């Protein structure tokens, strides 16, 4: 194991999340052992007990900030990381947990927990970039594991990752899919949603539901007008934008525009 200390050190951190995005690393069945040769997996509690303390060359951060404790912990993670890459909708936008941002979190606590007094939580779920500087954001709920390999590879050799910010529509065209909105009148967020999934939902006869959050320069009001023509009412429109990237600016604003009763 000579020279091991020279390999970059990788750490994987979890905040409020479902574990799915860090699981994507273990789902790289064909690449994980090669990756483990290229880097020292220095901190990854989901996968290993071993822990190398100190500084990390690359930190992958999953999850959103929902507790006072985590708001402090992320500062420590940033201090100990040369490059900090955030992965997944929770880390890039606050995730589904951000639905609380538009409601009364005390009421939520009462609904779920018998003893709300045992529960400590913040009123909001916020992306990592609200708390510390981040070096790269990889979108998705969950992330695409092939994009994760691309991002890690790019950082290891010092180039810019190729993760296009165009819409899911472009991916449908590249794949040769018939447009589900044109052909089947299916409501689809593809025109405003960030690429990365490979146009999955339209490939399975359903409209995109926005897992990767807003694309660059989205025109959500124009899409909503079309969706209204297809028969979606205001409440359904408000909900459509308010799921796994509810707190991402373009989706939040569009949801609020249609939200008449404040229910999101």
């Amino acid at each position, binding site marked *: 194991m000579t020279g091991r200390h020279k390999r970059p050190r990788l750490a994987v951190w*979890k*905040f*409020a*999340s*479902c*574990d*799915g*995005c*860090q*699981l*994507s690393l*273990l*789902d790289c*069945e*064909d690449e*994980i*052992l090669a990756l*483990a040769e290229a880097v020292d*997996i220095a901190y*990854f*509690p*989901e*996968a*290993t*007990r*071993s822990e190398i303390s100190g500084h990390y060359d690359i930190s992958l951060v999953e999850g959103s900030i*929902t*507790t006072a404790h*985590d708001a402090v912990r992320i500062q420590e993670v940033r201090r100990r990381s040369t490059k900090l890459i955030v992965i997944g909708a929770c880390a890039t936008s606050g995730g*589904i*947990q951000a*639905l*609380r941002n538009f*409601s009364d*979190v005390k*009421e*939520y*606590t009462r*609904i*779920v*927990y*018998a*003893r709300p007094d*045992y*529960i400590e*939580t913040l009123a909001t779920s916020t992306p990592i970039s609200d708390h510390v500087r981040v070096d790269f954001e990889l979108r998705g*709920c*969950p992330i695409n*594991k092939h994009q994760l390999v691309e991002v890690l590879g790019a950082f290891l050799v010092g180039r810019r990752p190729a993760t296009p910010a165009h819409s899911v529509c472009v991916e449908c065209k590249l794949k040769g899919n018939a447009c589900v909105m044109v052909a089947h009148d299916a409501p689809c967020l593809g025109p405003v949603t960030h690429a990365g*999934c490979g146009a*999955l*939902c339209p490939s*399975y*006869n*359903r409209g995109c*539901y926005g897992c990767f959050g807003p694309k660059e320069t989205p025109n959500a009001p124009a899409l909503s007008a079309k969706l209204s023509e297809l028969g979606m009412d205001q409440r*359904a429109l408000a*909900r459509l934008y308010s*799921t796994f990237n509810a707190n991402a600016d373009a989706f939040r604003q569009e949801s609020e525009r249609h939200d008449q009763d404040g*229910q999101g």
Partner: protein
Amino acid sequence: MTKTVKVDVLARVEGEGGLKVTIRDGVVRSAELNIFEPPRFFEAFLRGRDFSEAPDIVARICGICPVAYQMSAVHALENIHGVTLSPQLRALRRLLYCGEWIESHVLHIYMLHAPDFLGYAGGVEMARDHGDLVRQGLQLKKVGNEILNFLGGREIHPINVRVGGFHRAPRKKEFAPLAERLKWARDAALATVHWAGTLEFPERERDYTFVALRHDQEYPFNEGRIVSNRGLDISADDYDKHFEEIHVPQSTALHSRFRDTGAAYLVGPLARYSLNFDRLSPLAQEAARAAGLERTCRNPYRSIIVRAVETLYAVDEALRVIEAYEEPDRSFVAIEPRKGEGCAATEAPRGLLYHRYRLEKDGTIAEAQIVPPTSQNQASVEEDLVEFIGGFLDLPEEALRHRCEQTVRNYDPCISCATHFLRLDIDRG
């Protein structure tokens, strides 16, 4: 003897939590599994959503077993509407569940649990000395993920499940490449059962109350009565009458117990296997026996063999479903929303997963209740620690701490599901 041992993060579990073992005068007095995962409010998020949104929302509870959440949700919601699926669609749901059992079980067997037996910090470290073994595990896990990819659209948070069926049903001919991979996987799964049987296990048993689904003909995934080895035999509709969730301090998860006696119970592979051995395929039964298992398994350290047997069964069953598959006329049953309340329990890789929903007449969710397997097993994990760890107190400190961790990992706990931070405190007074 006065001593304190601490492990800040329990590794190789999904999520984070804390463990405190209190020892007085050489006797384990208590063990508390404390879950500090930031609270996640799924049951509240579901209120006010349309019932059709539930499968996509509940999937986000867990990245490791999203199919389980989707399956319990769609069955509960279909029960409200009195919908029954065609045999073809029902078989596709079994196939999807097979994919999740394979990827989840194999991840635990090879990457999370095996390192405890072979003495490594993790699967990647283990691969340096046992490269072929780990590669076999990764490829077997990949086959599970290939089922999820093919039928679900992706491994994590599949997109093809809907209330009433699937958005798209595959064509018969599309299965061919997957079937070829599954034939390889059957051999690999069989080899996994044999290998797991050669590991060394602490001789520890407890007289658990096992709780699992039981079906007339099948090893249970989506349907069946909720039964126990002590005479329980109920429909999921009566789950709340027999089980209750208790909120303990220092935890963002809820503990489940029997409502009448307050007793703990066990769900998951050990319970499923012991209550349904006769429903396993002949191949899986034979492999189990050859690996040294009896029809009932009360040693939780041996759960690694049981998971391997269930993996073999899932591969076998996936092949059966694919061979018998006939393309359905429609990929889903259309549903007109109605007011009502409905429940369902299905078998997540980690055990019984109960959902209950109440709907308004326009299909809006008025109330949702979700009881994940890890909350149901928490009391049992603590009892295992109290009962088993006493016999290990003469171990050196690091080995004892490791044994405590292994005892928790026997359960493949999904702390993200149960809600997170596993910290181990051993308090020797």
